[in-house]
């Protein structure tokens, strides 16, 4: 359960930490984002952000073990008074790190790897990491606001 959203998720996905299933998570979130009203490029980028977040869990949280569990909870916001958009919460039971140490690397340094956090931060409107209760696993809370087309084209 997210630290801020206490309603039941509209969609719940559980996958193992096996990279071959990333495609399924991408397809799912793209379809939901499209139905909410995000344009095609935004849908693709939201899928990329989710993919990067799951990759980080698989590589760092589970150290490339393929039998770890990852939960993705999705809320489509905007049905009531809140801002239209998507909230995605990703939880795992892997290793814990201090959220303050999770940051994007220096992009001036051209080297392979370390781009995932930067990509997530660039795409999503808010990104928050937390340690899960009980001493195991991390929780990542992502929000993406649906920008009305008029506002999007004006910016």
């Amino acid at each position, binding site marked *: 359960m997210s630290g801020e959203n206490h309603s039941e998720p509209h969609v719940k996905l559980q996958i193992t930490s*096996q990279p071959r299933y*990333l495609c399924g998570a991408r397809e799912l979130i793209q379809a939901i984002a499209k139905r909410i009203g995000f344009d095609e490029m935004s849908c*693709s980028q939201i899928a990329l952000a989710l993919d990067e977040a799951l990759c980080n869990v698989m590589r760092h949280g589970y150290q490339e073990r393929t039998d770890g569990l990852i939960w993705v909870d999705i809320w489509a916001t905007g049905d009531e008074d809140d801002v239209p958009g998507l909230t995605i919460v990703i939880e795992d039971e892997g290793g814990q790190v201090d959220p303050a140490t999770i940051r994007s690397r220096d992009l001036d340094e051209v*080297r392979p790897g370390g781009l995932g956090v930067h990509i997530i931060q660039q795409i999503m409107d808010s990104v928050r990491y937390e340690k899960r209760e009980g001493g195991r696993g991390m929780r990542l809370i992502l929000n993406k606001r649906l920008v009305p087309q008029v506002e999007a084209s004006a910016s």
Partner: protein
Amino acid sequence: MAEAEQIEVQINRHPAGLVVRPVGDVDLSRSPSFRGELKKVLDEGPGRLVIDLSSVPYMDSSGVATLVECLQIARRGSIPLVLCAMQTKVRSVFEIARLDSVFTISESVETALEA
């Protein structure tokens, strides 16, 4: 360790260089296979290496990292490396990662072989 999925890679030899065309999504499950294919190609020491991304609808940062590694190896061997025919969504990943100015990127295989 995760069991890597194999990626389909088509290779065409031209007088001006070698053209590698991966087919399908390049994500964490396929990047290790893609990396292996590129290393084999680089070991041949081509006069020019063109990576045709026209059949790659999706790439994540593991795919981008594979190409950055390939670029570094190519530079060490003085092999010109050109990416070409990127789909818009793939190009946006390079732009977000601010790598679009690091690579030589061409519109087509033909222009990449001349770049």
